[in-house]
């Protein structure tokens, strides 16, 4: 394990940023978000960013293809510029797991080459959690916030940063920065992990589980009368879907440039009224149906199709941000209560 005094954190960032873009969670307008590092930028004290780290691989808007018309010929242009190599530093365990969930969507046949391209260029350096919030429930999905996944993992104590490379990408990064570090044992890391685990046991949602849903009870859950009251106050906004690290739905739209088309995709939300609007009409005409879809997808359909893996990582963003404070935990608890 490598160790670095926190006094040298700026040097570390400079070294990482030397050969590729570096993004760190920093404060902007009172909100934490990933920003491209520049000398002088400090890491946020917030536990996590408001927008998740999925933006790096699945940005909110992205050009897919351009068509340019000259007379009777149509030129097809690939608007992609080769993505640069980049490092995302300070990703939390929940967001790190979200990448493997998104991979199951975008990297299966047919592979989404836009996503794949970014994924290949990105190195993920994760940061173990020390002070989880009451909204955290990643452990419910088998995630260990004291030892996140990632190309490399870090632990931050009061005075030092500990670094461990995990994948070949992580090893490659380690080579570039190793000279700043000293070798160290893992005693401080072990102590911190034990301390954090004690807090995890005290989290209000630490016993939460989505396991009773799904499987044989799928239709029973789908037909539950509770969807109506659960969704009654839903505003139909896209906050939960847009701050969610695993929501992956998008729309493909054409922008008419006057002499051609720019075809782009942008995040879409199953909470929006025109999400399922098709030529024949709309298959989900009420907010109850739209609301149900979001939670069924994460808690029932996704695990059914992906060897039991849930479409939720317990980051707690939707708990914190929903304008009416309705969320996946309340929904799951209510439905599970009915099954008992």
């Amino acid at each position: 394990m490598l160790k670095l005094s926190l006094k040298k954190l700026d040097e570390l960032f400079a070294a990482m940023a030397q050969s590729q873009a570096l993004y760190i969670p920093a404060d902007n307008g009172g909100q934490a978000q990933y920003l491209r590092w520049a000398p002088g930028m400090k890491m946020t004290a917030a536990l996590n960013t408001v927008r998740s780290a999925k933006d790096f691989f699945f940005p909110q808007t992205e050009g897919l293809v351009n068509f340019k018309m000259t007379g009777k010929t149509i030129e097809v242009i690939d608007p992609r510029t080769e993505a640069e190599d980049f490092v995302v530093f300070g990703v939390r365990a929940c967001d790190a797991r979200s990448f493997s969930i998104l991979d199951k969507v975008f990297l299966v046949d047919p592979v989404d080459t836009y996503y794949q391209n970014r994924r290949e260029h990105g190195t993920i350096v994760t940061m173990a959690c020390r002070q989880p919030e009451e909204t955290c429930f990643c452990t419910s999905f088998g995630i260990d916030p004291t030892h996140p996944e990632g190309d490399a993992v870090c632990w931050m104590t009061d005075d030092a940063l500990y670094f461990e490379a995990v994948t070949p990408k992580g090893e490659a990064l380690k080579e570039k920065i190793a000279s700043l570090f000293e070798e160290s044992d893992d005693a401080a890391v072990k102590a911190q992990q034990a301390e954090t685990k004690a807090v995890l046991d005290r989290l209000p949602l630490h016993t939460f589980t989505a396991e009773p849903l799904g499987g044989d009870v799928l239709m029973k859950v789908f037909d539950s009368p509770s969807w109506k009251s659960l969704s009654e106050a839903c505003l139909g906004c896209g906050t939960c879907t847009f701050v969610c690290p695993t929501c992956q739905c998008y729309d493909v739209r054409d922008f008419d440039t006057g002499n051609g088309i720019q075809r782009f995709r942008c995040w879409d939300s199953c909470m929006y009224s025109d999400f399922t609007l098709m030529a024949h009409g709309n298959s989900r005409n009420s907010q109850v149906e739209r609301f149900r879809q979001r939670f069924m997808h994460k808690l029932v359909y996704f695990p059914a199709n992906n060897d039991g893996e849930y479409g939720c990582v317990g980051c707690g963003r939707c708990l914190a941000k929903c304008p009416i404070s309705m969320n996946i935990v309340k929904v799951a608890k209510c439905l599970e209560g009915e099954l008992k």
Partner: protein
Amino acid sequence: MQGMMIARAGELLENGTVTRVLGWQTGEFVYDITPAVFESAEELEKGFVYNSFCGNNLSKYLIQASRKEGKILVFLKPCDTYSFNQLIKEHRIVRENVYIIGIPCDGKTDGEFLKAKGVKGILGIREEGDNFVVDTLYGEKTIAREDALPERCRNCKSKKHMVYDELMGEEGEVLDSHRFDMVEKLEAMTPDERFAFWRSQLSRCIRCNACRNVCPACSCEKCVFDNPQSGIAQKAAADSFEENMFHIIRAFHVAGRCTDCGECSRVCPQNIPLHLLNRKFIKDIDTFYGEYQAGEDTESRAPLTNYTQEDVEPSIVYTRGGNN
């Protein structure tokens, strides 16, 4: 107050005055409160709550709720009564299907706001005099109530209910607030400074539409931005121009109708002070057409939908110069 509300709501359900009650429901934590409809005394006992976290303005829900069969009881804070009146003026709520109980409000905070003040891991909160004592995973924290309230409550415009069928607690007064102070600061900036301010704010927008969907003045059946037939439907802002224009167009659309309830800024997940756009319009309307508060009544003609010979001419834009 909560106990009185539950008891009275139970009575009104019992004697058939109303068939449903619109209020607030407890959540997983002390602060995550959801607007909810209650249909029985048991439901009220189980989940009804009224405390310092009941910030949601319930008036907009009445657009749908008042169209259903039977009468609904709603609890409205002073702030929410302005929205209610404005929606009545716009013929969006069926008045006879609503029974209003006006309730007092000492300002509402929320979990996110407390966290922005550096409180982590909230487990419980109790109100002790002028303080919030927050029990957290990392020890106890005390915050002065004044510091724990968002801007809209620190600059509360009124403790007085504009409409009600009955009142609980003491009726308050319309207040002299400092709600235009920040607008004045923005007006004093150079155009470039002001542009930079708004770009830094609006560039964070993720177009979740929470501001629009929560806004009682945004009551169109179908928003142009959601309507594929409109030609300007937009799911995501493609560039900074679209990012700016969504909010500016929305502010124009609610100008003269916005009651300044502040829900837009409360719900913004990106902490954008959207209410400042609306307050600029309110302040300008006050200046050019005389003091006007949307939602104060249900009958008067609003400045922007009325004509008087004293109305300013369009040339006011030039006379004021580019810096206002």
